[in-house]
Each structure stands twice: as structure tokens, then as C-alpha cells.
């Protein structure tokens, strides 16, 4: 009984209810699959598969992002899934118990009914034998017909007692070999051979005990088949031959009850799941809403709106979070205000001092000039004193002006008056202004990349100030070697680089040059009397434009200062048209600090290095005079001849403005090397330059 009962009726419902479980399992496997491969993009396989995965993944990405970002969704979905699991488990248990209860009662009633029937059949057989005996000897030639008739009568009489509650079937025992020729007898249009399972028949053949099984009753008159309990026993007919008598009890009523219970449970379960989901949503909302509010307010606080506070109601944990948050914001605001006040006072002080100094300084200045004008009438000592006075007043004045300018930047009072300007004009003005100093130093200033207009939205006054500073610095620290001013524009940026071949910068100095009052070598004689604030102001000017001012340098190899400005104001910079490290730097030429070839001759012999060296000297138009010529020639005698300035100067640098539109193929190695640096915007180099991005 147990084996069969487990195999048939529960099996059906098992399959039906098992489907959601199966789906859940595949769901989790799907999830694992997605996490492991699909969403991480780690699918290793054919390109077709990867393409398919990408195609599948794309629409899923927003959903996954929502999943990752939304804790409310996460909790609600988790609650739904878990309550679904619990409800399903509960449903199985309840349905199983109901079914067992229903079947147990039915089976007991059926068994007693069948046992009675079997004994009746036995009695009838015995009675028939006795009656035959009373009638005298029956002819042995017609016993089966009599038995057949008797059996039909038996089936009718047995089934009539049940009033449709059960059907009766007799089958000839297969152990009899079928020689008896008795056909099946049945009541209620039951299809006997199909309805009685073969396994039960075999079991009845082997012993004479009653046996039972579950089956489906199939009717011959087209009624739908029904689940049923079949109980059978081998009984002897009046001739003493065994035959099989079956009682079939349809379980229609029980199945109806069971499906009612199932339906009720499913409805209740669905309600419970949905309600739990809704409850979870509500509960999570209560927690998440303040958290989200806190996040939003924290964001606004960090954006500078310090007066933002959370709304606090009640005294629960959320309210405590809100109170703590507000306290934090309060303290932050206080501290920030204190700091702001302090720095405003300090800036105001600097500004006031600078202004207050100006009026007496004007008087002193005028007096000194009057004295200076009249110095020819003085004795030499007084005349020299007058000269010193005038000179130092100049320096004092520029220092004061720079201080004021810096204080204006610090106070955030500097305003950008940007309009489209051609940077070549600015460069021309700056270079002509620096010419007298350059002549004194024996330096030649050359401008590269000024064939095409280099237009950007910028404040001409500020850009000129920056460039004047850079050029004067380059001339001053250039040791009399050439200074190259290079212009370029690409993408959304324009750049001006000022290159010198002087003492250069030691490692780490490239960031410190922009510090206020920083000096490379305090012992160094100052010839032009800078204030020490020039580069700081230049950096602030660049920042005001949303641009970068960066420095590169190597000891003994000179330095390069690069100003990068966005072509239109308010456009963020992504890169610079000019590399920060010039192509004729020692490292790019494959030389070490001592000026010796790096890594033997093997590296220099490779073609790309040579090309780059050639392009470098071409694009920056390496000076045709100055000590760099012997140094290059002497240090790398095996270098490509194009690296030498003599031949490099033959290559005319392409106009920067038209580079992006021109698609002509490079004609020689020098061109390709040149293009590498000029085409497009190179990604920003890492390192010290990073510190000087605009704010």
C-alpha cells in the first residue's frame, strides 16, 4: 500500500506543486550564472556567445543597477521570495495531511466492504456447489457456461449493494492459463482490463490474500476516468477454479474535497505572500525614507548648503539618527563658519594692508622719482643711493601688487572676463616684451606652431600675465640657451608650452615651483627681481580659466611649463594638445641623467625610438644653436640623423589647427613621430602634473 500510494496520487500533486520549486531553483541558478558570468562580463567562450551575452546583458543592466541601489526593492523582493517558500512548504504539509486523513477513512470503509463482498462470493460459490450436488450430476461439458452465468449474476448482485458507490469486476486468474475461457464480468460500464493495474493482477496470482492499489477507473461509455481504490482477491468459483474478484471504489468525492482544500490554501497563500510583500514595503519605507532623506541632506550639506537639517519626529532610533546628524551638521557649520570668518579676516587684513600701504607708497614713489630725476646734481654716493631707492621701490611695488593679486584670488574676488582671443597675439606681445631681457641674456626666443590661429575664450590680461611670467622665467633660468614657445590646439583645448634648456628642475620641484615665495636655490643671484609670487598667481589665473598650469623639468635638462586652457569657457579639460614632457627630454631621447645612452645601444637602435627622437626635434624645432647640439651629437653618436637639429629644422611642423582635418598619410618617419604627439589630445599624464588640475 505504502509504495503504491506514494507512487500515484501524491505523485500527481507532487508534479504540479513541484513546478514553482523547480522554477525557483532554476532562478537561483540563473542568478548565479548571471552573477558569475553574464554580468561580470567574464563569459569565456566563442565570440558569438559573448556577443549574445552582451546583447542579453544590456537590457538587464538598468534592472541590476536598480537592484544594487535600491534597498527597499531588495528587501521587498527577498521577503516575497522567502514568504513564498514558507507558504509553499506549509501548503505541502497541510495538503499531505488532509489527503492522508481523507484516504485513511475511505480505505478502511472500502476494505470492510470488499471483505464482506469476498465472503459473499465465497458463500455463493459454496451454495452453488451444494445446489449442483442437489440437482444431481451436472454434465462436465457445460460447466463453464454455468459458471459464466453464475459469475455475471454474482457481479450484478454484489454491485447492486453499493448503489454506484463501487463497481465490481471479475477477471479470470491468469494462473489458470486462460483455458477456462471465462471473460471478464463487470458492473457500471467499467473497462476492466485497463482499470485494474497489471501489477495488482500479478500479485493476486501469486497468493490468495486480498490486495489493494490505486488506479484510475476508465469507463467504456465515455465518462471521464476517475481516481479509484481497487481491492482484489482470488476466489474460487463453483467449479473450484480460481478467479479474481475486484472492488473498484472511485475517489471522486475525496478528490473534490482535496482540490477544494488546495484551492483555499493557494488563495490564502497568495494573499499572505502579497500582504507580506506590502507589509515589508511599508516597514522598509519607514526606515528607508529617513535614510534617504539623510543621504539627500548630507549631499546638500557637502554641496555647501550648510543650513540644511533633517526633520526629526518622535524619539525612536531614526529620530536619534536624525538628531545626531543634525548635531553633526550644526557643528560642521559652526566650524566652517569659524574657519571662513578667520580666513576672511585674514584676507581682508592682507587686502587692507596692501591698500593702506599704497597711499604712502605713492608719495614715497613720487618723491624718489623726483630725487632720481635730479641725481645728476648729487655727489656719487647720494646719486647711487637715489638709484637704489628707485630700483627697490619698483620691486616693492611689484611685490605689493602681487600680494594684492594673490589676496584677491584667495578671497575669491577674481573675476574672469573671457572672450575669444587669438593666443598668437598674446604670445607675440609677450615675446616682444621679453626681447630686451632675452637680448641681455643672449637668449633667442622662438615661437612654434603659430601658423594657424589658436583661438580660445580667455581673459587676455590674465593669459598675458601667465605667459609673461613663464617666458621671463624661462629666459632668466635658461642659461642663455634658446627658449621655445610652442602653441597647439586640439579637441576642446589649447596649450602653450614654454621650454627652456637651462638648469631645469630637480625631482619633486615641478610641484613646488608653484608654491608662494618658493625659490629653487636661495643662494642664486636674482637678476630680474621676481617677487616669488609669479607662478602662484599664474596657477590661480589658469585655474580661474578652468585650465591647467603644469611644470616638467629634469636636472640639467631644462624645463617645460605648459598652460592648457579649454577652448570655450566652462568646458572641462580632458587632455592637453602638448605632452607635458617634451619629446627632446633626456628620457625620451633615451639618455639617463648623466647624458649617457640608456640601456646600451640596443634601445637606441630600435626604429620607434629614432622616429620619436626625430619627431621630437622637429616638432619642437630644436635650437640650431646652443649647447644642446654638441650634447646630443656627443652623447648619442648612433642616433638617427634626423634627431640632429640640423636636419630636424627642415621639417616644418604642421599647423596645429588643421591637424585633425588632414588625413594625408605620413610621408616619412619624422612625420609619424610628429603626429604621435600632435594628433588629438593625449591622455593626461600621471604624476606630478595631476596636482595642478583646475578646480
Amino acid at each position: 500500500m505504502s509504495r503504491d500510494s506514494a507512487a500515484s496520487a501524491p505523485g500527481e500533486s507532487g508534479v504540479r506543486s513541484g513546478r514553482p520549486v523547480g522554477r525557483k531553483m532554476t532562478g537561483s541558478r540563473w542568478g548565479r550564472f548571471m552573477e558569475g558570468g553574464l554580468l561580470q562580463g567574464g563569459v569565456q567562450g566563442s565570440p558569438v556567445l559573448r556577443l549574445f551575452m552582451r546583447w542579453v546583458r544590456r537590457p538587464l543592466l538598468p534592472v541590476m543597477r536598480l537592484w544594487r541601489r535600491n534597498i527597499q526593492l531588495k528587501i521587498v523582493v527577498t521577503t516575497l521570495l522567502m514568504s513564498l517558500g514558507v507558504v509553499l512548504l506549509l501548503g505541502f504539509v497541510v495538503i499531505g495531511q488532509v489527503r492522508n486523513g481523507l484516504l485513511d477513512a475511505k480505505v478502511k470503509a472500502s476494505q470492510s466492504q470488499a471483505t464482506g463482498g469476498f465472503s459473499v462470493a465465497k458463500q455463493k460459490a459454496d451454495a452453488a456447489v451444494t445446489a449442483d450436488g442437489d440437482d444431481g450430476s451436472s454434465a462436465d461439458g457445460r460447466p463453464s457456461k454455468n459458471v459464466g452465468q453464475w459469475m455475471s449474476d454474482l457481479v450484478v448482485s454484489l454491485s447492486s449493494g453499493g448503489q454506484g458507490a463501487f463497481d465490481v469486476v471479475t477477471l479470470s486468474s491468469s494462473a489458470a492459463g486462460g483455458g477456462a475461457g471465462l471473460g471478464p464480468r463487470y458492473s457500471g460500464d467499467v473497462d476492466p482490463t485497463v482499470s485494474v493495474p497489471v501489477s495488482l493482477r500479478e500479485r493476486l496470482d501469486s497468493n490468495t490474500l486480498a490486495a489493494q492499489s490505486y488506479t484510475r477507473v476508465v469507463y467504456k461509455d465515455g465518462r471521464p476516468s476517475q481516481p479509484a481504490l481497487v481491492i482484489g482477491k482470488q476466489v474460487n468459483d463453483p467449479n473450484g477454479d480460481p478467479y479474481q474478484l475486484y472492488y473498484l471504489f472511485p475517489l471522486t468525492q475525496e478528490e473534490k474535497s482535496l482540490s477544494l482544500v488546495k484551492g483555499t490554501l493557494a488563495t490564502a497563500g497568495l494573499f499572505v505572500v502579497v500582504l507580506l510583500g506590502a507589509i515589508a514595503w511599508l516597514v522598509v519605507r519607514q526606515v528607508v525614507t529617513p535614510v534617504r532623506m539623510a543621504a539627500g541632506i548630507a549631499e546638500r550639506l557637502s554641496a555647501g548648503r550648510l543650513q540644511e537639517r533633517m526633520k526629526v519626529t518622535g524619539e525612536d532610533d531614526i529620530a536619534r539618527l536624525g538628531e545626531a546628524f543634525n548635531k553633526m551638521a550644526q557643528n560642521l557649520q559652526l566650524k566652517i563658519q569659524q574657519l571662513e570668518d578667520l580666513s576672511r579676516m585674514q584676507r581682508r587684513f592682507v587686502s587692507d594692508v596692501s591698500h593702506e600701504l599704497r597711499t604712502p607708497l605713492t608719495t614715497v614713489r613720487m618723491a624718489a622719482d623726483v630725487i632720481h630725476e635730479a641725481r645728476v646734481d648729487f655727489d656719487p654716493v647720494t646719486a647711487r643711493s637715489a638709484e637704489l631707492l628707485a630700483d627697490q621701490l619698483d620691486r616693492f611695488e611689484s611685490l605689493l601688487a602681487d600680494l594684492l593679486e594673490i589676496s584677491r584670488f584667495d578671497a575669491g574676488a577674481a573675476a574672469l572676463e573671457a572672450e575669444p582671443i587669438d593666443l598668437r597675439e598674446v604670445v607675440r606681445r609677450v615675446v616682444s616684451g621679453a626681447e630686451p631681457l632675452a637680448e641681455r641674456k643672449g637668449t633667442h626666443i622662438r615661437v612654434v606652431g603659430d601658423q594657424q590661429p589658436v583661438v580660445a575664450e580667455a581673459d587676455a590680461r590674465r593669459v598675458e600675465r601667465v605667459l609673461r611670467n613663464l617666458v621671463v622665467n624661462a629666459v632668466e633660468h635658461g642659461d642663455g640657451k634658446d627658449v621655445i614657445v610652442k602653441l597647439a590646439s586640439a579637441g576642446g583645448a589649447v596649450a602653450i608650452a614654454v621650454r627652456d634648456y637651462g638648469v631645469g628642475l630637480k625631482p619633486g620641484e615641478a610641484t613646488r615651483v608653484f608654491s608662494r615665495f618658493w625659490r629653487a636655490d636661495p643662494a642664486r643671484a636674482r637678476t630680474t627681481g621676481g617677487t616669488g609670487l609669479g607662478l602662484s598667481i599664474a596657477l590661480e589665473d589658469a585655474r580661474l580659466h578652468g585650465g591647467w598650469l603644469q611644470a616638467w623639468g629634469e636636472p640639467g635638462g631644462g624645463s617645460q611649463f605648459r598652460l592648457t586652457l579649454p577652448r570655450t569657457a566652462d568646458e572641462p579639460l580632458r587632455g592637453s594638445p602638448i605632452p607635458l614632457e617634451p619629446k627632446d627630454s633626456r628620457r625620451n631621447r633615451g639618455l639617463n641623467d648623466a647624458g649617457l645612452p640608456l640601456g646600451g645601444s640596443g634601445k637606441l637602435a630600435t626604429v620607434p625610438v629614432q622616429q620619436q627622437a626625430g619627431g621630437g626635434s622637429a616638432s619642437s624645432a630644436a635650437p640650431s644653436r646652443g649647447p644642446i647640439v654638441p650634447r646630443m651629437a656627443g652623447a648619442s653618436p648612433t642616433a638617427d640623423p634626423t634627431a640632429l637639429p640640423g636636419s630636424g629644422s627642415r621639417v616644418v611642423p604642421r599647423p596645429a589647427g588643421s591637424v585633425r582635418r588632414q588625413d594625408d598619410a605620413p610621408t616619412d618617419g619624422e612625420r609619424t613621430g610628429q603626429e604621435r604627439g600632435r594628433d588629438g589630445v593625449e591622455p593626461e599624464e600621471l604624476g606630478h602634473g595631476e596636482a595642478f588640475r583646475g578646480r
Partner: protein
Amino acid sequence: MKGRVLVVDDDTALAEMLGIVLRGEGFEPSFVADGDKALAAFRETKPDLVLLDLMLPGRDGIEVCRLIRAESGVPIVMLTAKSDTVDVVVGLESGADDYIVKPFKPKELVARIRARLRRSEEPAPEQLAIGDLVIDVAGHSVKRDGQSIALTPLEFDLLVALARKPWQVFTREVLLEQVWGYRHAADTRLVNVHVQRLRSKVEKDPERPEIVVTVRGVGYKAGPS
């Protein structure tokens, strides 16, 4: 050359020093140290030029500048310790022709004063037309349909400079050199402010100028006549 200069400055040392320098250059300086008394002194001395410190006790320099400008077109040069945008622009908008930032060199100051006074020398008789305006250079008058428009000498100079070469676009730097007499690039805000002031007087609709036209990214030019 006439050379009466009224110095309005509360710093006595600076005023005295200015006096020394101005006298050395052949001007006749007179002094007033208080903003409240500046207007009376101006009416009394009838100077050819006013040197005006922006920070004054009593009425401040901006106010004094406005009062003087209200009754005279005499050139006003501001002395200011602050070259910040707002201060300078406010000063220029209140009617000053030029400004000079402390500390300045005596030569610089004298050059500015001379540039402002240079115009007083006799110009050749000349008739110019710009838009629907008729300019009599010698008579120092601007007329639209016979109605004369009052301009300060500086505004007049600016208009004449543009009208003399109507085909040319003037950059702000060129105008600074021609009208203000700066030899090297200076603060172009001077030009912007005075073009605005000029437009407010000569244009029918200052929002849509027809006399002094802006050439974006370059400068200004005279409108078609």
C-alpha cells in the same frame, strides 16, 4: 597750455607731493582735502582737470565725481588704491574719464594728465558724419536733426576717433592709445565703460546700437552713415 588742476585728496603728504610734481611740469595745482568742499572748490577754481581720490572723508570720490560731471564735462582722473573690477567700473560709470592706480610714477601721472588736456588744443575745422549724427570737430558739437547732444570731451574724442575711419574696426587697445593716450596695453574696461556711456547718449536704442557697433571678439566700429 592751460594747466589748472584741482587735486581732491585727503592725504596731505600725497597732495603736497602731487603739487611738487605738477608744478614741476608747469601745471597750476589747487587742493581740497574734503569731499564736501570739493564741489565748491571746483566752482571756484574752474580747473581744466580734476585729480580725484576715490577714498575721501565726507562725500566719497564717486559721489563727488557724479556731482562734477553733472555740471561740467571737465576731464576727471581718479586716483585709486583698488584696481578691482567693481571699484574701477563704478568710478568710470560715475563719470571719470580715466583712472590711475596707486602707486603710480610721476611720469605716468603727467602723461595721463597731458593726454586728457591735449584735446584742448585747437583742432582743424572738420565735419564728420556717423549714422544720422553730424559732428563738428572744431565746434565740439554733435547734432542729430539739428538737435545738439551734450557729450563730455572724452566721449566726443571717442566718437570722433570712430567717425574719422568708419571703415576700420578699432580694437580696444587701439582706442586706448588713440583716445586715452596709453602707449602700451592697459585696462580695456575703460573702453567698455565709456562706450556704454557714449551709447546711452547718442544711440536711439542703447540695447541695439547703430552708431557704435560692437564687432564681437575684435572691438568697435562706426555704424553705417
